[in-house]
């Protein structure tokens, strides 16, 4: 470039006689190069974003799952833990049959049954029921929840109480719609 002759020969080129068309050539060169450079990234963009558009389900689609016989729940409201086994779960290219996907705590008082997702609404660790203090406790960041699922300790980092699941009793069995919710926000928004 420092060679003035070389520069001259360039501008002598028939296509670039005025500054305007030269700018056009430069812009086109940058454009073409950029298009070539970005092309492979663009080709993969949809694949990368696929998880965002996939799986748009709603609560209505979540199936009822039979969890346990009512008789397994003590009448005094003391919670018991149960695995949730779904008949069918899809993970990308694999379809699993009868696979455990998580767990719930269920407690009963008379005919009233309440079920919580085991996952702490803070960041997703599994909470434990503590019988001495009769509450739920997250062993990761120390959130505590009452038997009704509400946050009991002001220092708990969880922004909302434990997530209740839809439940019903049919044929003396407890049925649950097992659902995960978006962690760490005050609102309960289903993950889908």
């Amino acid at each position, binding site marked *: 470039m420092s060679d003035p002759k070389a520069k001259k020969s360039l501008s002598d080129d028939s296509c670039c006689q005025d500054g305007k068309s030269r700018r056009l050539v430069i812009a086109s060169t940058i454009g073409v190069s950029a298009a070539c450079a970005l092309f492979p990234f663009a080709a993969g963009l949809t694949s990368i974003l696929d*998880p*965002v558009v996939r799986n748009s389900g709603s609560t209505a689609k979540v199936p009822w799952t039979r969890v346990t016989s009512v008789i397994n729940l003590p009448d005094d409201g003391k919670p018991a833990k149960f*695995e949730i086994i779904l008949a069918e779960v899809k993970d990308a290219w694999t379809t699993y049959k009868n696979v*455990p*996907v998580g767990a719930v705590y269920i407690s009963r008082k008379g005919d009233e049954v309440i079920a919580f997702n085991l996952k702490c609404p803070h960041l997703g*660790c*599994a909470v434990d029921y503590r019988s001495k203090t009769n509450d739920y406790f997250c062993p990761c960041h120390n959130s505590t929840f009452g038997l009704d699922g509400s946050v009991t300790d002001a220092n708990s*980092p969880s922004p909302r109480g434990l997530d209740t699941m839809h439940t019903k009793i049919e044929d003396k069995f407890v049925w649950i719609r097992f659902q995960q919710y978006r962690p760490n926000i005050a609102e309960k928004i289903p*993950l889908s």
Partner: protein
Amino acid sequence: MSKFLDWLDNRSGIRGLVKEALYEKVPGGARWRYVWGSCLTFAFFTQVVTGTLLWMSYSPSAQTAWESVYFIQYEIWGGWFLRGVHHYMAQAMIVLLVLHLMQVMIDGAYRAPRELNFWFGIALMGVTLALSLTGYLLPWDQKGFWATAVATNLIAEVPLIGPMLQKIVVGGVEYGHQTITRFFALHAGILPAALIGLVVGHIYLFRKHGIHVKEPRPKKDSYFWPDQILKDGVACLAVLLAVVILTLYFKGAPLGPPADPSNEFPARPEWYFLFLFQLLKYVPAFWGAVIIPIALGLLIFIQPFIGSSRKGHQFNIGFWWCLLAGSAGLTFLAFSEDRENLNHGAAVREAEWQAERVVEIAQEDGIPPTGAVTLLRQDRENRGRRIFAAQCSSCHRYNGHDGRGYLVEDDQSAPELAGFASVDWTTKLLNYDHYISPEYFGGTAFKEGTMAKKVLKKFDAEETKLLPQVALLLSDLAKLPYQEPLSEEKRERLMDVFYDDLACIDCHDIDSEGEGSAPDLTGYGTRKWMIDFINNPEHERFYGKKNDRMPAYGRDKKLSTEEIEIVVDWIRSTPADL
């Protein structure tokens, strides 16, 4: 030879390149404090090589990730060593990063004209931490799975695009195949490429500005080759040795039980992220994951400018010492809280047990195409522990815990069942003091029952002496797999004690028509007796109407027949720990 080199140099200019690379001037002479950058380059080189070799055996999917790492760890010749070196070198890299950074800060080598290179270094630190984070998940064991769940939930804290970003990283809503493939692409593709690019820039800029030396120069100037390279080499050797020693000492990197979303595990990150983990106990996740890192990042970004004055430089050094001390303090708190937490210890030991168990089964029976997680889910021993913990342990205990090692908060209200029907167990059962203690029937109505008050307590010294013989007889009836049976003769003799000397037969039957008012001891402690008992303790063969709160698990369908068999087999399989 020299002819060939001449030719090569003519075509490639290699001599000039080598010269430029090796004869870099080191003002003030070679020094030990300059070795950290070379050590980091060496560590990264090790990671690229060992990582690529691991890649040759690793298979990223939810059904094969743990399984292939298991294969590397337990089957491939020397695989455990390769994996161990990769694991501990990753940790060494973090330590070296801190040393390198502190050396640069203290020497003031981050200030003009080296601002740009300082930012390259900070970016390199970020990429290295991201490599650690993504690598933690790849074995797809419980530890990696649960910790990554927490880490990826933090991504959702990014304003506006957080939830979308989380989905892109996780590959959907649930953790599975796509999480592993994406993490693997990050760990073995995108992040190393970024790191190489940044390292090239970092070294180029370092060469451009040269080594920063404090005046007056401590020694005469020298050259990179061989003075500094020797020091660098020795330091790299020390790093290598430390990593090899760690690998040998810990027998390679740990591998937890396979990831299972229904098998909870208290998530903990690698030790160098523990400070962040601990911080999240005190501040909202948005602060811990977004505000504080951004604020610190911004401050670090402008540090080269702050450092242009003497006071500013001192502030910068103080800032990094405070940051390190704060992190160390939080890390210490995280460790000590976990150490004091008995349940956390139990959870860790439980995971260790599961890890050992699944390896045992895998080595014996092999791993099915459904993956190793099904081995544990179907394993009768594992299920026995879990059923006991869920169904029995709120009243009974097993070696004083819930069957899996967790302490139970409820008071014990029914007998300890580890070593049930063993000689030790029955001998204690027939001792009045033990019988009425919480370890046996102290928490039940039987504490005040006929056996306690009218039999064991009333026996005279002579009769009490005979009780261990009855205990021996009862235990023999159980046919426990770990006890030798008695000889026919001996059994006959003990039967005489049972029938005549102590007249137990007045209430308890053994091989006779069911007349007695107390539990029938025919086949006491055998698999069948226990299954029948758990099925319905209110049956007239057992407690009848005197049953005190023991549920009829089979009759009332609280447990399936298979589950009762599993828990019985598990209780009968091993003696008590003592």
